[in-house]
């Protein structure tokens, strides 16, 4: 439920100029991401990004219980950035958002540009930058997981602040900007804690079995493959 609390912007929330502007900005950045992701993955891009998108989509189905019946789920921007890199991560989260908008009517179609900008672009870029800054100072797998957790935590309020900027430019509701910023900031700091903990735990789990496929650590000593444990067939 975290995501639907305040993340996917529906139609009519932002005015037309800002909706179009966010579409244009997102399109330009994604075009760059397409070019850059070829450098990262060459012709493996499409199948690997497609399957990672499916993974993020499935990850969002998992409810993490918080307390007394409430639960939340992962947003996955920072997680995607750490696992497959910022460029592929952007494409992956974008595909998930577009599918949600087209097939599940989750998030408005006119607001899709803004939703992509906030959740696919801002969250992955911020998550990636934080992770790469932090990874220099850690030597161990658990350290890398903590850094990934911090990246996940920071990515959520960052993406909420991107929404506040869009709202300031073209919001259709007469609420004072400081009220929106305070409400969004407060709620998303809490959401960010959950996002950070889960991101860190998932990254730790992947590092334990296939550190060589984690894009965020591929140029560090942590990327050395471990002896692979047999995975029991389910």
């Amino acid at each position, binding site marked *: 439920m975290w995501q*639907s609390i*305040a993340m996917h912007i*529906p*139609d*009519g*929330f932002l005015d*037309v100029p800002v*909706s179009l502007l966010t579409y244009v900005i997102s399109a330009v950045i994604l075009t760059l991401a*397409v070019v850059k992701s070829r450098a990262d993955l060459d*012709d*493996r*891009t*499409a*199948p*690997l*990004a*497609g*399957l*990672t*998108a*499916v*993974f993020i*989509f*499935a*990850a969002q*189905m*998992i409810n*993490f*219980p*918080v*307390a007394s019946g409430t639960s939340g789920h992962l947003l996955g921007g920072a997680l995607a950035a750490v*696992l497959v890199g910022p460029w592929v991560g952007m*494409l*992956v989260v*974008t*595909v998930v958002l*577009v*599918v949600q*908008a*087209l*097939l599940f*009517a*989750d998030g*408005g*179609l*006119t607001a899709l540009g803004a939703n992509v900008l906030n959740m696919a672009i801002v969250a992955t870029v911020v998550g990636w930058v934080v992770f790469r800054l932090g990874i220099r100072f850690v030597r161990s797998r658990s350290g890398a997981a903590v850094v990934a957790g911090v990246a996940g935590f920071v990515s959520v309020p960052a993406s909420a602040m991107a929404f506040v900027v869009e709202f300031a430019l073209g919001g*259709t*509701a*007469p*609420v004072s900007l400081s009220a929106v910023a305070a409400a969004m900031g407060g709620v998303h700091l809490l959401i960010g804690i959950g996002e950070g*903990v889960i991101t860190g*735990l*998932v*990254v730790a*789990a*992947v590092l334990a*079995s*296939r550190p060589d496929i984690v894009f965020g650590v591929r140029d560090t000593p942590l990327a050395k493959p471990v002896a692979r444990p047999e*995975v029991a067939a*389910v």
Partner: protein
Amino acid sequence: MAVTAFVFIVVLTPREWIGAFVAYAVVLIGFLLTAGVRPGRMARSLVLEIPFVAFALLLPFVGPDPAGFAGLSIAGMWAAWNILIKASLGVLAATLLAATTLPVDMVAGLQSLRLPTPIVAIFTFFIRYVDVVSDQYHRMRIAQEARGFRATSPRSWPTLASMLGALFVRSFERGERVHLALVSRGYDGRLPTPQVGMRRSWPIAAMLPVGAALILLAGWVATW
């Protein structure tokens, strides 16, 4: 594309023209009923908006100038109405698209909109493997429950997260296998796409935005 155009037209409409929104709703629901979408599905899709409805309902209380009707802000009420009606119409329009269009046609549609090939390819893989990976996820959940696991508190997070980690490794490795299988069949980064009957259906699809545009036009003429 038609649905996006429709929603943009709806968002463009000044919020004071209540009649125009009623007309949009009539046109859209007419389409939905013709397409055989049951009212239950429409209602379920509207549930998604609930958090935003809550935000909208707050607006009359926090908006400026609370001197209006019954101590509520008139500006706030207009804003709430604006958001509610536009979001509802948007959700219904997207439901129409999802109910009438096969995922394969949607990929073809994205391609005909000249989206970059890599993005269309990622979509194709997404749509082909979404059921495979969700099935895998459900099998892992069943296995967990068979071992007596129930997620009830944050203490279950490490278990759920390590399941997610395993799911990522499995998805990524599936991607690697799919890639190798494609390469062995002569894959060079391009995917063949099925040609689907887009041309036949576009006049019907165009009726929705064109109808909405006519309503908007009528509104302009009427206010002159």
